[in-house]
């Protein structure tokens, strides 16, 4: 289960991606970003039912 990051860049990119999720979500909620663009950035909202 544990993810192994091969390089420092890969690890920092994963961290920055997680940090950037809030801004992406905010842009999505406020209509500044489409869902397609949100997903293109590698973000995926949980499916709720």
């Amino acid at each position, binding site marked *: *289960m*544990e*993810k*192994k*990051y091969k390089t*420092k860049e890969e*690890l*920092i990119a*994963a*961290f920055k*991606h*997680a*940090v950037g*999720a*809030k*801004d992406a*979500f*905010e842009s999505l*909620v*406020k209509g500044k970003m489409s869902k397609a663009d949100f997903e293109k950035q590698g*973000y*995926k*909202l*949980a*499916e*709720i*039912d």
Partner: protein
Amino acid sequence: MKLHLSLENINSKSPYKVSITDGNSFSFTTEEGNEYEIGFIKDDMFGITDAYQFFIVPKSEKNTIKDGKIQQTIVAVIEEFFRTKEVLLDYICDTNDGRQATRSRLFSHWFSQFPNRKLFTLRTLTLYYEKIAFYASVIIRNDNPKYEECLSAIDNFESEIRGKLDETI
């Protein structure tokens, strides 16, 4: 994994009526007319399958008076999220206005008031990157079948990234 969250359960405990938006997030409107959206984004940072990052975003804020019902509404949603024991929730405090330390303390305070909090573990992480302090909190149910694996993955990620980020300061 699809999250099976019951709106009925949420609304039985939430002071504000919560609705589902497009099957992917929750929303509610306060008495003051402020609208909020709550979302869970799949988070692969720790390499844990069922990890989700939690967000609450104001869609419109007409008035910013303190409103305890907002906290109660969020707690109702998170409580329902944790009806599934396999999931893990993480929250990275927004750094845009430099108030991330306050947000982290607030989140810990919320957690301290969380129903049945003894059934959960809270881990907090502080990381420094490019002279900015990042605060993250992770909540996991103590009876998560992968509890030890998850904590080990978080600990390893933290020590690995701390070492790497220190090199960038």
